[in-house]
């Protein structure tokens, strides 16, 4: 009853594939826009935890800082946006 029609998904030639899982999307988003890397005072660049990076991203976007990949955060990550990183590198 409540199951939608089963669609067949095809790979369209020339399409830049965006069929990422939520986790893949989040990881690439946090990386691309600078939330995963922090530059220490020593000049050493280190990776922060995904949870910390999510909190930074949520703060920047004015979302509730849960540190989790919730619905609002995922929705924000899917919005059209500027390609300039939010955290300078």
């Amino acid at each position: 009853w409540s199951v939608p029609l089963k669609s067949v998904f095809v790979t369209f030639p020339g399409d830049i594939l965006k069929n990422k899982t939520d986790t893949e999307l989040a990881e690439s988003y946090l990386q691309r826009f600078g939330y995963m890397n922090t530059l220490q005072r020593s000049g050493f660049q280190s990776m922060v935890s995904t949870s910390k990076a999510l909190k930074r991203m949520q703060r920047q976007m004015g979302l509730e800082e849960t540190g989790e990949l919730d619905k609002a955060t995922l929705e924000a990550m899917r919005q059209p946006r500027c390609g300039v990183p939010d955290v300078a590198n």
Partner: protein
Amino acid sequence: YKTFDGDLKWDHQDITYRIVNYSPDMDSSLIDDAFARAFKVWSDVTPLTFTRLFDGTADIMISFGRADHGDPYPFDGKDGLLAHAYPPGEGVQGDAHFDEDEYWTLGKGTVVKTRYGNANGAECHFPFIFEGKSYSTCTTEGRTDNLPWCATTADYSRDKQYGFCPSELLYTFGGNANGAECVFPFIFQGEEYESCTTEGRSDGYRWCATTANFDKDLTYGFCPSRDTAVIGGNSEGEPCHFPFVFLGKEYSSCTSEGRGDGKLWCATTDDYDEDKKWGFCPDQGYSLFLVAAHEFGHALGLDHSNIREALMYPMYSYVEDFSLHEDDVEGIQYLYGNNRTRSHSPTTDPTDEPEPTDPTTPVVPVDPTKDACKQDKFDTITVIDGQLHFFKDGLYWKKSSSSEAELKGPFVISEKWSALPAVIDSSFQDLLTNKLYFFSGTRFWVYTGKNVLGPRSIEKLGLPSSVQKVEGALQRGKGKVLLFSGENFWRLDVKAQKIDRGYPRYTDAVFGGVPNDAHDVFHFKGHIYFCRDRFYWRMNSRRQVDRVGYVKYDLLGC
């Protein structure tokens, strides 16, 4: 606001810019104008001036490109990343790049500026009437030379105002042929071409020769996109081909079948399965003016703001009447100081329409130019007396159930139902009594002919006080109506005026595959429609989503 590390800024105030290339999505004059207005946003509040150069190196070099476009930061196809820009400095610093895989408009759909004809380059008026038929795109009807044209007023037969639409048969842009039209067929590397091609290029731009033999004359230009052209895919600039076959099934309109992202696409030949040629169907597009104003902020030294309403917030959202946010003003004036001699006047999009006249005053006539096709979304959509009704901000339009029927309106809500407020969240007509129920916020009204009861609180029906508005109403047989709000729905016994026991229930538990935050839900011609923004999800009687489409095209018939 934020500036880049080290407060990067220009060391001079007379900034130069150069438009290196153009997008085929819009007439070059509209692109020039969008960039000029985007610079004016910043020059209005600072001592900066912006001068356009036509060759050489400018401080800010502006270009369109897709995917890998010559810097280390490739674009990502349609949607997602729209553009980027570099902070002030030498070389690539200060430059702004726009993703060609986006559909660049003024934010409200296809903008078709005409050339020649007798309308002095006015924009097409869609829809327009020609010989009794309504047209929502440019047409070649009535001509033998295959040149697409449009009327620039609503009725060509009455006003006789027209112009020609973008076509490679009329002109090209860029290249080295001074805008001359394409010559077909033309020879390129010994091969004969009957239409524009991307052969010989790696950037995906369509081009043609402007003489019969490119190999000999070497003159060429880029082809402007027609208003019906697809975006991206592997057929950029080609029109949809209807009907087309996909996985053995025939389609006569754009579809989201085959895609996981819900985007509408079409084939550009009659058989996708065989030719694999496709592209996305034109949508509202992104406002080049708004995106450019944001990117130029970077080019002047501003980083992303975390204030959602600020221009320098990283996400795109369309705003009708743009004015620079205080945060942006403070940021740019921190870098360059203010300009006391210039006023900080809001900049508006040239496509802006006047606000509707006060709909609560019956004596004020409705602005006839208020076009349902230009509404992004409606407050509510419902069926009254068999006709679809579209409500928005004190106005409504109606359309009979025939797909060929003409859209009528706008009408003023308060002239027909004087007790109602301007914003109607939801409405339904009781099938047994023909009474009309209207919901707005936490109140509702019941109309029997011209008699009205209400407003009454929706709590009287048994809805909890946490419900702030009813967003959809769905007839379930006679005497029962489902009321939707948030992710839940309740069943109302209309006769008893009470919510049935066992509710609320989760929308997605019963109606799978539709957005659970739909803002309009209604029943029409045997299907249930769930609308979110400008899209609808159509569900058949077996509760299967059998179509996702645009309200504008499929329901309004724009």
